[in-house]
């Protein structure tokens, strides 16, 4: 592979695979923050450069036209947008929308809330929207480019459902791409808008959907599964709570009282049980992080109701009063039973037999506790019924003779024990 120096014009991109097909990807940003672009650059499954360099077998190489990444600026950058809107690009293209779309088409006077390119970059075949030296509204590029696109992908919660720029009190009249294009919109391939929500989305959710659609367009495969709102089913088909590593706390009825606590975050404002998102399964980056995994309460940023239907933040959702109380009662009982079983699992059969736990850490449970012994007796009965009773077999096992070797050899190490005890960190009861 080698770069083409003459391609600096930005039309084809600096690098081109010798044999492959090209699909252009046009990025539009309106009421955005660049956060969606930033997560796209962080994606690993696949990586953006694997797509732009055509490194995935069976996929076309994409030519990414992106205001934050492209080589050329101004008219040189806009000429591909113009050609696509004009129908003269002579190559398939995909439209990516970042940010919501302001209602600036309906501004009474001059002006715009988001602009890209000037009137001289605009194809005359689409009418006259701005004088040659005046900025063109991004909302104009959207209606001009959407019908000819193979597919439109709304990237992030602003583009999908309006997001924060569309929140109560806004003065831009912002809305999501689906609202702007309307219920009748179909892409050139017959698809409604594909939505990848999140504020920001998981970067991999975006590049994965893009990759799946590219595979689909290559033919021979079915359409990836999208739900009734155009979200990838395999990404948004579950609530974020179901894969949350703190869901176990909820199950046992223990809740965080304040930020920084380890337990389930519902009572400090987590909406996870009613939010469709996969960040607890996929992580935020390379299977690491993710809101609740790091201790952050879910504020519903993937949902059409975000942000107003989740405000005020840091306040328990109303529904949690019922579900939380129920969980405290049933989960609390289950938790206590589990701790009893856990205490049994926390001793070697050897310790049960010797009636002691030979450790200077000193915090291991007391194996001679009678309640514990009764518990363990019935537990083993149930566990081994219909199978082999290993407790019985362990009892018949002789104690190893070289057990406690230092005492047998007369080596005295007791001096170190009290020092160690002082440093023990007491942990809250599980």
């Amino acid at each position, binding site marked *: 592979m080698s770069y083409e120096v003459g391609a600096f014009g930005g039309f084809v991109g600096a690098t081109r695979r010798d044999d492959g097909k090209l699909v252009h990807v046009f990025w539009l940003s309106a009421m955005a923050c660049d956060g969606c672009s930033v997560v796209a650059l962080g994606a690993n499954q696949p990586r953006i450069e694997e797509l732009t360099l055509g490194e995935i077998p069976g996929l076309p190489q994409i030519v990414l036209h992106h205001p934050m*990444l492209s080589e050329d600026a101004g008219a040189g950058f806009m000429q591909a947008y113009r050609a696509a809107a004009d129908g003269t690009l002579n190559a398939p293209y995909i439209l990516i929308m970042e940010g919501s779309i302001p209602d600036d088409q309906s501004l009474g006077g001059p002006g715009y809330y988001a602009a890209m390119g000037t009137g001289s970059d605009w194809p005359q075949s689409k009418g006259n929207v701005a004088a040659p030296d005046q900025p063109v509204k991004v909302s104009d590029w959207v209606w001009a480019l959407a019908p000819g696109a193979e597919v439109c992908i709304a990237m992030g919660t602003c583009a999908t459902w309006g997001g924060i720029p569309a929140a109560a009190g806004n003065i831009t009249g912002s809305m999501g791409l689906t609202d702007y294009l309307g219920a009748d919109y179909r892409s050139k391939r017959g698809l409604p808008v594909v939505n990848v929500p999140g504020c920001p989305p998981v970067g991999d959710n975006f590049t994965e959907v893009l990759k799946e659609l590219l595979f689909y367009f290559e033919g021979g495969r079915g359409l990836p599964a999208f739900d009734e709102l155009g979200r990838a089913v395999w990404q948004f088909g579950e609530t974020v709570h179901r894969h949350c590593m703190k869901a176990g706390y909820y199950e046992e009825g223990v809740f965080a009282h304040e930020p920084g606590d380890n337990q389930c975050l519902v009572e400090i404002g987590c909406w996870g049980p009613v939010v469709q998102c996969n960040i607890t399964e996929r992580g935020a980056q390379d299977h690491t992080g993710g*809101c609740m995994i790091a201790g952050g309460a879910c504020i519903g940023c993937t949902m059409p109701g975000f942000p107003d239907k989740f405000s005020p933040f840091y306040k328990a959702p109303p529904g949690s009063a019922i579900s939380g109380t129920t969980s405290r009662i049933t989960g609390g009982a289950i938790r206590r039973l589990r701790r009893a079983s856990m205490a049994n699992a926390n001793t070697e059969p050897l310790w049960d037999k010797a009636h002691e736990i030979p450790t200077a850490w000193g915090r291991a449970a007391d194996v001679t506790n009678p309640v514990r012994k009764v518990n363990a007796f019935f537990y083993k009965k149930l566990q081994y019924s219909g199978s082999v009773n290993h407790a019985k077999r362990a009892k018949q096992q002789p104690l190893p003779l070289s057990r406690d070797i230092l005492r047998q050899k007369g080596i005295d190490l007791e001096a170190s024990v009290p020092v160690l005890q002082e440093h023990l960190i007491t942990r809250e009861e599980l």
Partner: protein
Amino acid sequence: MSTQTLAAPGTHSGAGARNLRFNPVTRVSGGLHLHAAADFGGTRTVSDAVAMATAFRGYEVILNGRDARDAVFISSRACGVCGNAHSTAGALAVEMACGVSPPPQGVVARNFLSAAECMIDHPSHLFLRAGPDYSEPVVRETSPELWSRAESTPAAGAAVHGFARVSDIMTALTRNSGFLYREALHMTRIARVAYVVIGGKYPHPQTITPGGLSSTVDTTDYNITLLRIVKYLDYSRKTVAVWDDIADFFYQADQRYGQVGAGPMNFIDLGLWDDPHTVGGPSGFGETRWSSPGAIVNGALQTTSVREIDAGVEEFVEHSFFENWSGGGYSHDAGGNPLSSRHPSNKQTIAQPGNPNPDGKYSWSTAARWQGHPMETGAQARMWATALARRPHGSFVESTGRSVRMNMPSGEMPANVLEWQAPQRWNAFERNRARAYALAQATLAAYETVVIGLDLARRGGSNARIFNPYKIPKDGVSGAGYWGGARGFVSHHMQIDGRVIENYQIVGPSTFSGSPRDAAGTPGPCEAAVMATPLVSSDPTEHGIDVLRAVRSFDLCMYCAAQ
């Protein structure tokens, strides 16, 4: 449709006169429209320039009338690169209003997130946004005279970065396929992992809250972060070597490159990385930040007091799509410093969309000034303030009054000292060079915070506390948050009444750097830098590469400039 044109005053005439119209200027964050009058003929100069922020979302207006608890998560979304800085500034503002500050572990975790944000953004700027301007395809097209020179110029930093000749560096800077381009993507993913362990997600963290964080950080979390940060020790050394070599090559090829993006040495920064042991104390409030607060005019340090820095800030809208406001009840700040009626805490956001006109209104950004001066923000301002402030700056960084000495521990490469010297001239190359050194500064800050954080986590108990409870009072209160992103200066100003936000104001780094002209007609720093730029490169296609290098060297973020 308006018939006003964008032809800037003072347009050149003659055969080489061109109107450079970059809408958008690519490879900056957010929408930037730059219009400059250039002469590619005899004078090879730029006579006028206007920088226009082309998007407005109304974050300040959206925040007004919301529950004060919404401030952090909503204001974070003002910028998708500097989200960490905005959520932290929002949290600091609420904290000031409620009279609470985070415990040491909370300070440590916030410091870490801010350092990690720099470790993601600085390489993203240097190699994804600015880097391609110095890459082989661009140099060959815009200054073919330099390419053969680069091929025969040995790279001084070869032992560190591994590129034998300057042309090898340029090849590696090529967009998409170049080694340094791809390495930057790879390295930022490593820093992102470190970030999300504590922040939950990036760029909009989910764990920053007034009173500290909700992060459940333990030894494992700090372990994951530590092992990723140390990869940046060598990467910082390498990044510095690359940008040292690029600057030196262009200076030697043609002295006039020293004028590309030239500007006065005016810098403003609120400081970063609070000292975890003194932040709540009486002398706290920014004075002990590892990267010093500072306002610098013409290369001379004016103050390191956060209060004095803030009190000198004014925002002008004579050339912005806003109506001027009247009123505002703050004549003095809490420290007794007088405040102008143009100070952010007195400001009202009243949008007035229109078509751009260089003689009238043309940008969605206000024009932020400090004591009337246009100021630069960002990594370069941090380096300047740290160098000149001459105060302790953590365990690894020394300030000599004229330079920043960074004691870099060993990675795969041996330990060494990186020293950034405040330069004699100020231009696009120096901005990029300073940003490369700032990556080392951020890496050391991240490293030190994690070491402290690990210690606190190991000690457990109250040391591990990361949050202090707060209560938003019912009576009217106000607060401000002073912090910084990778791009520098971020301040949030809020007034709360009945626990509801009455007025919220945000000043971002590019509200200074990327600003339009102010009430006095003084151009913003980026506009001035473009006008100072000689068209040095032969640029046969009249691409305007020198102008673009000047603009991109600021690492502008127009979403921060115009929220």
